[in-house]
């Protein structure tokens, strides 16, 4: 049998909890979808990431719009499936997830709460706005070490363990760390 990832237990449970005692609505469907986390960075929800763009409800039917972070990011498939599972658990059926490419996702959409969670998790959040990385004059802001807070850090590799991260090292505490790239 072809089997997909089961939604993470806590997510599905949260979705079910959220469903109890509240009617179906756009806000409710959004809240349920917003419990889904990024499988690669489990502290971030798709709402924190800015990947969750909209939720619509029509009777029992829910339509959720997501935007992919990076074109080839394999985590997107998992997030899409988890959204369907969470909404199914909350009583929505059928659930449709639309992937839209435009407007293109940017780290500017990451919430402040998401950035704080990332730092706590040991990943330096995006430093500055995407506009600074475009055009002729580009400004690379210092990336703060999530462990000791030093701004004396160095990019080791622009490409890291996932599409969204670069590898850095801290010149003060000497620890390597991931940086969520500005895009």
């Amino acid at each position, binding site marked *: 049998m072809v089997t997909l990832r089961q939604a993470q237990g806590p997510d599905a449970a949260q979705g079910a909890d959220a469903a109890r005692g509240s009617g179906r609505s756009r806000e409710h469907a959004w809240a349920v979808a917003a419990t889904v986390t990024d499988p690669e960075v489990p502290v971030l929800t798709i709402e924190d990431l800015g990947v969750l763009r909209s939720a619509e409800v029509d009777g029992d039917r829910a339509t959720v719009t997501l935007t992919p972070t*990076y*074109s080839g990011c394999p985590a997107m498939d998992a997030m899409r499936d988890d959204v369907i599972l969470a909404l199914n658990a909350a009583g929505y059926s059928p659930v449709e997830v*639309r992937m839209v490419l*435009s407007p293109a996702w940017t780290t500017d959409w990451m919430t402040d709460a998401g950035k704080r969670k990332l730092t706590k998790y040991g990943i330096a959040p995006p430093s500055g706005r995407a506009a600074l990385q475009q055009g002729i004059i580009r400004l690379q802001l210092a990336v703060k070490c999530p462990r000791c807070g030093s701004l004396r850090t160095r990019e080791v590799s*622009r490409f890291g363990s996932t599409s969204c991260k670069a590898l850095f090292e801290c010149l003060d505490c000497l620890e390597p760390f991931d940086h969520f790239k500005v895009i």
Partner: protein
Amino acid sequence: MSDPHGEVTVDELRLADELTGADAAAAASVDAAEYALWLGDDALILAQQLGGWIARAPELEEDVALGNIALDLLGHARSLLHYAGTADGRSEDDLAYFRDEPEFRSAWIVEQPNGDFAQTIARQLIAATYMFELYSALRDSSDATLSAIAEKSLKEVDYHRDHAIQWTLRLAGGTDESRSRMIRAIDDVWPYVDELFRDEPLIDRLEGVAVRPSTLRGAFDRVIAVVFAEAELEIPDGFTSSGGGRRGIHFSNLGFVLGEMQVLARQHRGATW
């Protein structure tokens, strides 16, 4: 038999369409689909070739970099092939795995073998510089799906291009050995540059939808001139390949690339994991 993953099956999930452009319901015209194959096949073949470096790159960071770039390109290919398939009901997998060589529309530059690291970088420099100009212009397409894919892809080929430029400078300005290899690599891939900017009859039928390739040449040349000046490299004055990828006539290496890419899907129909 109990399933460790639970009771969830694909059927129950009613999977949504794979990544699509601006409008999930948009269907491509026959001509727009053909154009999407040009772009999608370039991205797909380049992704497949770059994947060949995984576990073989000169250093670990570069292994990760080339793998990441390949993954981005594969994402572009998925969006473009999905859209191409909407014209006649084929899926992105049908198009990737079940077309034979003459049905591909990739250009010869992306079909050039990986060679040594310098040759891969030379190919990347040309391909990424071309794609950057292409997607910049394609954002203005009257076709909403192509425009959306271009907007998304541009952000990524931007840093692919930067990666190739950094390595071109480093190899050309490095040791005698790295410099001689970089010069040889440029000599090897340069004959395949012209094909990228050749207008085919298809383009005449896609006014406002497709980008006319010849209009990108000026911007491409300006970027390459800046990089080559910095790297003290010269544009080779050798022969120019006739190309022919857009018409299904391919460089000999494409068959080997497809053989490896398609063997599993063809030998084990419907295989999943």
